[in-house]
């Protein structure tokens, strides 16, 4: 595959897209349009895209399919109760959406927000050389504003269902979450497809976790093969806060996750957990950054993958510890099991430390299943297939078990059963 194939200007890709009608700050829209003008898709010569080829994506000219088909979204729901917003092809599917009044929780569509209400949107997002962020700004279709009041504890689920249901369509969505001081909440994001092919979801979330607040984001990524997803989360943590994120990727031709956590306060805890189980010709790329800007913080990062058939994966995790961020404990680990000779992974854990009194570790392992363990299990009467499943489940279970949300785990297990024949 020659590099020139990816040298395709964005204008062909964006020709059917429409400039956003959302009341975003005008300077951001202008900056995004300027950023995109005359640009091409990044190639593998760009460091951030070294192992992820955008060739297939760049050949598309997706259309807007704002009018939803009203496909039954119930099978995709992870939670049975609480607030549920269904966004089909980038438009809110009002009939499937369920707003419940919960004290301390506000959920609003961007399209019904004033410019003033949206004045902080985009504030955390870098646009320069970030073409997908720029597209998410210039061509934004809709957004969801989630506000958790100070001291509010939201026990009922908040679920966003992203659904692609048209061929070669683009869904461009922003989520803006503000978690007030000492509040506690969790948000679930499921990404799905039904009848879609060659479609792309570009979802950006900006999350501000206030002082002393606890916030959990859990993502289940299950678009069928044939579809693309670029998913970006920009998180800022204030002091004494805890942010936890679970990213479970089970399907999709190309899934790119960009996570950046700015730990901008002392005594914070940051947990990033990721599991990816790939087969066919899937490609999943997890790029994460944890930026420790202040002292006395803890971060845990654990990503694990099982890569079968011809699937490929990328893990690029960066932990920064700034000069004055002393007494940081930062742990990062990535593990991969390759099930076939044709599966592959590129793993790059990185630490950049400018402080001198810190405890940090990082590591990466890639290997095959332990054949001696397979034989041991078989010698006890377990079939080869069950033996391999037991070992894979044990491997990936270490990450999946970090999540104690029963409904999320149950849905994950149901899909694992459907796709891989596992019973957990």
């Amino acid at each position, binding site marked *: 595959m020659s590099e020139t194939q990816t040298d395709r200007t964005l204008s062909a890709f964006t020709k059917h897209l429409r400039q956003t009608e959302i009341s975003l700050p005008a300077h951001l829209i202008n900056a995004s349009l300027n950023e995109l003008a005359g640009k091409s898709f990044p190639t593998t010569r760009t460091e951030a895209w070294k192992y992820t080829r955008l060739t297939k994506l760049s050949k598309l000219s997706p259309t807007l399919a704002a009018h939803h088909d009203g496909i039954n979204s119930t099978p995709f729901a992870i939670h049975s109760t609480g607030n549920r917003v269904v966004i089909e092809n980038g438009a809110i599917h009002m009939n499937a959406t369920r707003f419940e009044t919960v004290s301390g929780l506000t959920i609003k569509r961007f399209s019904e927000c004033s410019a003033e209400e949206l004045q902080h949107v985009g504030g955390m997002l870098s646009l320069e050389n970030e073409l997908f962020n720029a597209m998410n700004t210039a061509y934004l279709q809709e957004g969801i504003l989630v506000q958790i009041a100070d001291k509010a504890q939201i026990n009922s689920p908040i679920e966003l269902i992203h659904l692609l249901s048209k061929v070669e369509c683009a869904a461009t969505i922003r989520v803006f979450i503000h978690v007030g001081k000492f509040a506690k909440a969790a948000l679930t994001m499921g990404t799905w497809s039904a009848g879609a092919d060659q479609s792309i979801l570009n979802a950006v979330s900006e999350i501000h976790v206030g002082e002393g607040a606890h916030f959990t984001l859990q993502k289940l990524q299950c678009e069928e093969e044939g579809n693309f997803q670029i998913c970006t989360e920009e998180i800022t943590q204030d002091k004494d806060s805890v942010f936890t994120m679970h990213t479970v990727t089970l399907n999709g031709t190309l899934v790119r996750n960009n996570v950046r956590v700015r730990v901008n306060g002392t005594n914070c805890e940051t947990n990033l957990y990721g599991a990816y189980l790939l087969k066919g010709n899937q490609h999943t790329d997890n790029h994460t950054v944890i930026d420790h800007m202040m002292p006395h913080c803890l971060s845990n990062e654990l990503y694990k993958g099982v890569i079968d058939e011809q699937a490929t994966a990328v893990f690029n995790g960066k932990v920064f510890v700034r000069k004055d961020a002393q007494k940081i404990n930062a742990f990062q680990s990535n593990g991969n099991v390759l099930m076939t000779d044709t599966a592959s992974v590129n793993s790059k854990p990185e630490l950049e430390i400018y402080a001198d009194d810190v405890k940090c570790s990082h590591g990466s392992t890639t290997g095959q299943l*332990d054949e*001696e*363990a397979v*034989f*041991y*299990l*078989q*010698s*006890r*009467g*377990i*079939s*080869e297939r*069950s033996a391999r499943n*037991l*070992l894979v*489940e*044990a*491997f990936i*279970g*270490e990450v999946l078990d970090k999540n104690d949300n029963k409904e999320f785990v149950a849905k994950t297990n149901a899909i694992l059963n459907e796709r891989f024949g596992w019973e957990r």
Partner: protein
Amino acid sequence: MITIKNLHASIDGKEILKGLNLEVPAGQVHAIMGPNGAGKSTLASVLAGREDYEVTEGSVDFDGADLLELSTEDRAREGMFLAFQYPVEIPGVSNVNFLRTALNEIREYRGQEAISAKDFMAMVREKSAIVELDPKLASRAVNEGFSGGEKKRNEIFQMAMLEPKLAILDETDSGLDIDALRIVANGVNKLRSEKNATIVITHYQRLLDYIIPDVVHVLYDGRIVKSGPKELALELEEKGYDWIKAEQEAK
């Protein structure tokens, strides 16, 4: 129970078993002793179905079944059990989960219903007592962080759970102190019956003070070269293996 005739097996083109004959009837314990490199562990591996070994000649009848035609798991389902010389650590897979899977796959093979959770746990309690295995170890990951003695006791615990017709103990005594050895041997003795058979593979006579064999075989250069009553083990202990070597070379 098992009849091995003229068994030849090689690994990477090198012949290790060179026409081995052995018959172990039900209700008996047979010990196989021999110097390093004689082929003791190869015999255990070939019987368990390890694919690294190629059987080039011979036959193995296991209670009426053609053993060499069976997959590793089907051999276990037919009632064979190998206690490993080096039990494998399997992080993340609990002993209990693993054994329930094994037990139920064996039961399914035999056309029996799956065991209920309650009966299974009762069985775990009963069988772990046989080898004085802390029930807490039963719920931990398979062999992970176990001491050498705990690993070997865990092998015998698994054997107790699976109730095999034929158990092959491959150097189960290696690395055990006298207390652990006694516990392991007691476990094996409690599981002996008229219906099952045991093959004890060992380098040392010591184990046979605790597990009394009906017959002792000497394996040398890929063949059984001598068989006798339990006293043969004492003779080997006293004289070492050199006289066997000398005797064989003289032939």
